[in-house]
């Protein structure tokens, strides 16, 4: 109550100061005050930059097989060599292979005599950047025949770091496109349901109820299994996105319906109706903009859910198919304890998943707090 008294006083002041400042400016101002949300935004920006420039940023092409280095551990970046000499340029040691005669397992050990300096703008695997022009320039790497596996290699001898960057294209877009689709669908359904009410509302609500009464992952699994495996990987990818969004719209539609039901009786909608504004126009001009901040918040918080969903499906082998890759696909290699004990670096992609999910959650939370600019 006293809090309320103070809040009242403060909000009266807050309202008196930014007169004429639009709601979006207020949201932005409040959002930027939130340190956690801001850092989330920075992380997201970094991750997407990595996805956009994957070919250039990764030292190798995602499909390059280093058959001499299968399941090689990460090569440590060093500045000081064996003779305690400090190098101006970071370097990695080469690997020498040894075979354990008891288990016949191959081990890699650093060969302290071979030094590969890490250089900027090296020539390496050639790629066609976004299908536009062909080049072999990489931001960093070591010159051939040296190798540099920042996060080691997988069971087929592919560089894990490069694959994480390439995989982020799929992992980071699945959530984005999926949320976009489910927002469109959810907004349409939610607003229709709330605005028209009656039978339409009833049917839509029952459909949502049925959809929501299934547990998400088993349903995703069933739907993902329905995607024919012989399809082109790109269609499988789109199919997975569709599957993820198919279940995501229910919650959004429900919340929007509630908002629209409340708004429908408010004066500005009644006024628009009284002026003879048509129903679609009321929806587009009044209801959607008024719910937009709400939609964006829900959407932001749904993205990590979908990213986790894709990761889970791909992990189980129901998701993205080779030659495409995603973080989930990469993690599926680490499915067995046996493998994990010998090649623990295979779980590194999960840090990308966690970082992404955390970042989106921080941003979503920040947006939610900021979306209501008049509350203190």
């Amino acid at each position, binding site marked *: 109550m006293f809090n309320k008294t103070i809040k009242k006083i403060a909000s009266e002041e807050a309202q008196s100061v930014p007169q004429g400042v639009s709601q979006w400016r207020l949201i932005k101002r409040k959002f930027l005050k939130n340190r956690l949300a801001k850092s989330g935004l920075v992380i997201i920006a970094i991750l997407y930059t990595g996805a956009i420039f994957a070919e250039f940023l990764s030292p190798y092409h995602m499909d390059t097989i280093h058959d001499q280095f299968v399941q090689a551990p990460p090569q440590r970046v060093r500045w000081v060599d064996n003779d305690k000499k400090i190098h101006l340029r970071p370097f990695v040691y080469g690997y020498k292979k040894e075979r354990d005669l008891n288990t016949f397992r191959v081990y890699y050990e650093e060969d302290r005599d071979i030094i590969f300096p890490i250089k900027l703008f090296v020539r390496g695997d050639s790629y066609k950047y976004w299908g536009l022009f062909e080049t072999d320039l990489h931001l960093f790497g070591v010159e051939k025949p040296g190798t540099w596996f920042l996060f080691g290699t997988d069971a087929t001898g592919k560089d894990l770091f490069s694959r994480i960057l390439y995989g982020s294209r799929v992992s980071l877009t699945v959530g984005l496109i999926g949320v976009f689709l489910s927002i469109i669908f959810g907004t349409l359904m939610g607003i229709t349901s709330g605005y028209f009410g009656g039978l339409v509302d009833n049917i839509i609500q029952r459909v949502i109820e049925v959809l929501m009464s299934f547990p998400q992952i088993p349903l995703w699994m069933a739907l993902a299994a329905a995607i024919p495996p012989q399809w082109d990987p790109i269609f499988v990818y789109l199919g997975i996105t569709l599957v993820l969004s198919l279940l995501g719209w229910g919650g959004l539609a429900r919340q929007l319906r509630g908002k629209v039901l409340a708004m429908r009786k408010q004066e500005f909608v009644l006024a628009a109706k009284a002026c003879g504004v048509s129903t679609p126009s009321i929806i587009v001009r009044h209801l959607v903009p008024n719910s937009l901040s709400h939609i964006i918040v829900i959407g932001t918080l749904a993205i990590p859910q979908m990213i986790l969903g894709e990761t889970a499906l791909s992990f189980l082998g129901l998701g993205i198919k080779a030659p495409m890759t995603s973080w989930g696909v990469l993690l599926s290699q680490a499915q067995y304890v046996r493998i994990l*004990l010998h090649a623990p670096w295979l779980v590194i992609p999960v840090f990308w998943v966690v970082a992404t999910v955390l970042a989106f959650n921080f941003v979503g939370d920040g947006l939610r707090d900021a979306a209501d600019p008049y509350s203190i």
Partner: protein
Amino acid sequence: MIRYIFKRILNAIPLLFFVSIFGFILINLPPGDFLTTYLVQLSDRGTTVDQATIETLKARYGLDRPMYQQYFMWIGNFLKGDMGESFGLNRPVNDIVRDFLPATLLVTISTLFFTWLMAIPIGIYSATHQHSWKDNLFTVIGFLGLAVPNFLFALVLLVGGFTIFGNAPIGLFSPEFVDAPFSIAKLIDLLKHLWVPVLVIGTSGTASLIRIMRGNLLDVLEQQFIQTARSKGLSERIVIYKHAVRNALHPLVMQLGMQLPEIFSGAAITSIVLNLPTLGSIYLTAVQEQDMYLAGSFLMIITVLLVVGNLIADILLAVLDPRVLYD
């Protein structure tokens, strides 16, 4: 109260009906049908099947009939207690469910209790010690719990178990106890294994419940009747536990309906990694092999469990909050 429960049950019936239709369509969605898959499997094993056998099989499962008739056949048998035959496992689905359901329920219910037992006290603590370092710590753990995929957490525990204890806590029993009759030793062995899936599945749920509980309690503590309770001279303990917490539990119980599907989801994927004898772990192969009766039964059983869970939540809600019955 009885009228209220009756109304709830009545409401659940059409829901179950639509769910069954949807589930049926879903299972039949993949191109081809299970018989084709089945025949391919048979011929892979070198068994050739003549046309007559195929026809008998088709007739037996009603595959020669239109879709809607197939549906009614399936749901009719389901209601009579016959869930059909699993092609992948070559056993009646009833038998499989009988074998796997107890572990499924055990894991699910234990997880549910775990999440609530953890979330409520921590939520209360966080709300009453807002912005303390422990509150912040719980927030961080909560965020991480939401962000780390279940299956990975399971893997980490397995690897940890392996490096520390020398064996990974896979499954629900040690090999020597799997077929052993019930005994105290078996129970202890079960508990030794059970904590892994419970922790794995429960963490993300606990994390979100803590946040809900904390938020609710903070809201409730701002309300007027809390001041009233204090103004009576009640101690802070009674104010919080008797007056505030009971009001804050309301949205939490409503959350139960949302939480059960999450637990089933988590259980499905975790079971696969941990190799638990639950329905979830056989469900993956069932959907992959288009083992429709098995997969369909799984979806139906889970939904029935959810409906029952929601019913319990509704009843609990009515007990907790007299306003529910009044509406």
